[in-house]
């Protein structure tokens, strides 16, 4: 497909003095592939991230469909359990590290400089480097599937000792790939923090920033805090596998449970890394289409910070059945239940923003509203999972699968799609085809619920996660889920079609593409020229 190329910059600049230190590029950019390899422009890199993420979304989706096809009915029909395990693992890893996270980074690259009135990211060359690490990392990761012994087959949570003493030989490459992806995220986070803290338009204080910028700032701090922990864990794994240490091996005085503590110390904040920017996107879209300022802007910022802080105190709720002592169970149960409070504040704020607004239902708004409803349903099942005694029944069943897919698919992914539909006019200068987008929306809604809602029942009825075959009483739920999954997968082709059509042409969009949109990005022309805000805009405090 033709990637979105921002129009070549007209070679006339009102400022001759190029920002020193970042004198990268107002000379004519290199042509062809080199242009994309060497680009340091935040918009081009943002597009690269988004295209990469979309590609990976489909690859991860195909893996999910292999899983769903095998689970279509009882018995082993299509794949061997060994390959099934590789598919569930790869689906998880790809979706988390290669689809959702890069999509948010792509949106951040595109939108943060535009929203804070900066000419580019603070560290453009680092930005280029951190993107190009991703294809390297995930080519390596995907290639493990072709290695002798197969790819990683121990679940995306890679619990030791299954992932150390009992792992396929390709695990070393898996670790390497994850290291590279981690470095990429870390560099991206450094860049985003540096940009937000130092490059804001004169007069824009932290509390004047749009919520997308705020949530990303907090997300970037979370990344800085936990990606090194992930790096540490996989380094310990590497040492256990190759250098004879025993961090996670009881035989040498280690402890397999330690792995889980370390992993989830990274893993739980990671969950919020995947949802906080989504909160930011939704908090931009709902006020726009309700034509009313966001209710409780300050509360939103503070609730985001509170969620981020609490995310470091709840990790062991993923481990209620590993045999924690009673006191620990109680501590983590209480702290987990408390997270419901700031999360609830956010939902209440969105709903109150709608109250007495003037609401229209363009495709970005539809996805944002679906986000609020379905994410909240995911939040409810999360609250149920927080009740430690009940978790003894829920843990590692399809109930958990239903829960986190509700939070991540109609949560994170719907928010990303809402953001894409919202900002496409700014990126391409054209409105996306509204009819197509509406079809995409309704098909996605049906697909998502058909896929994931029956999983609640399958889990409660007793179906464990990550099994390639199941007892007969789970057959109907799985049948529905599989049908829903294929339906959902197919309907995402409409999304690709919509994006391609929008890049190619469509109804022309003005600078302020949506009536109620307020932030700085809507002051630059649509499509946004390659270089914007070379002279910092004057920021006027609006309503928040």
């Amino acid at each position, binding site marked *: 497909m033709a990637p979105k190329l921002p129009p070549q910059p007209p070679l006339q600049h009102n400022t001759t003095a190029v920002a020193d230190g970042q004198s990268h590029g107002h000379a004519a950019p290199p042509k062809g592939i080199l242009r994309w390899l060497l680009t340091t422009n935040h918009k081009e890199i943002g597009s690269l991230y988004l295209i990469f993420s979309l590609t990976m979304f489909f690859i991860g989706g195909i893996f999910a469909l292999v899983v769903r096809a095998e689970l279509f009915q009882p018995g082993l029909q299509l794949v061997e359990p060994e390959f099934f395990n590789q598919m569930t693992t790869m689906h998880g890893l790809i979706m988390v590290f290669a689809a959702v996270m890069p999509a948010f980074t792509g949106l951040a690259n595109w939108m943060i400089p535009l929203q804070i009135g900066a000419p580019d990211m603070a560290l453009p060359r680092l930005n280029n480097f951190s993107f190009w690490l991703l294809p390297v990392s995930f080519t390596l990761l995907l290639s493990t599937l072709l290695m002798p012994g197969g790819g990683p087959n121990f679940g995306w949570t890679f619990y030791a000792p299954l992932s150390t003493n009992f792992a396929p030989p390709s695990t070393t490459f898996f670790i390497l790939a994850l290291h590279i992806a981690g470095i990429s995220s870390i560099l991206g986070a450094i860049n985003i923090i540096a940009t937000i803290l130092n490059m804001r338009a004169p007069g824009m204080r932290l509390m004047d920033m749009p919520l997308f910028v705020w949530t990303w700032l907090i997300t970037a701090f979370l990344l800085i805090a936990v990606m090194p922990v992930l790096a540490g864990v996989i380094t310990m794994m590497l040492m256990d596998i190759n250098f004879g240490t025993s961090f996670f091996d009881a035989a040498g005085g280690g402890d397999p449970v330690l792995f889980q503590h370390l992993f989830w110390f990274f893993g739980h904040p990671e969950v919020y890394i995947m949802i906080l920017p989504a909160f930011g996107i939704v908090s931009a879209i709902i006020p726009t289409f309700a034509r009313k300022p966001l209710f409780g802007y*300050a509360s939103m910022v*503070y*609730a985001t910070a*509170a969620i981020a*802080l609490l995310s470091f*105190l709840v990790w062991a709720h993923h481990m209620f059945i590993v045999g924690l002592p009673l*006191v*620990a169970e109680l501590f983590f149960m209480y702290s987990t239940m408390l997270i419901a409070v700031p999360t609830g*504040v956010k939902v209440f704020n969105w709903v109150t923003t709608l109250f007495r607004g003037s609401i229209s239902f363009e495709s970005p708004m539809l996805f944002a509203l679906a986000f609020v409803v379905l994410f909240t349903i995911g939040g409810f099942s999360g609250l149920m999972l927080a009740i430690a005694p009940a978790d003894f029944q829920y843990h590692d069943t399809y109930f958990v699968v239903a829960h986190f897919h509700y939070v991540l698919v109609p949560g994170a992914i719907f928010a990303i799609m809402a953001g894409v539909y919202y900002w496409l006019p700014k990126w391409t200068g054209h409105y996306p085809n509204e009819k197509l987008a509406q079809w995409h929306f309704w098909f996605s809604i049906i697909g998502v619920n058909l896929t994931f809602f029956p999983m609640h029942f399958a889990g409660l009825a007793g179906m464990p996660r990550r099994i390639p075959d199941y007892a007969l009483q789970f057959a109907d739920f799985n049948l529905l889920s599989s049908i829903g999954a294929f339906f959902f997968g197919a309907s995402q082709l409409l999304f690709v079609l919509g994006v391609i059509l929008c890049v190619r042409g469509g109804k022309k969009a003005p600078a302020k593409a949506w009536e109620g949109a307020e932030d700085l990005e809507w002051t630059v022309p649509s499509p946004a020229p390659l270089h914007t805000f070379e002279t910092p805009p004057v920021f006027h405090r609006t309503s*928040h």
Partner: protein
Amino acid sequence: MWSVVKSVLAALLGVQSNQKREEDFSSGRPAAYLVTGMVITLLFVLMLIFLAMFAAR
């Protein structure tokens, strides 16, 4: 001092008024908020631990 503590507590719950926030952000002492935030977080964790230990008896 009390107003700093109040702001941080409000942040913990995610409830803050715009006016109060304006005051906080114009007072220009981010370090005070940071330190208070950390102390309160620590107190909060300790409180939860004691609550859990008390409940476990």
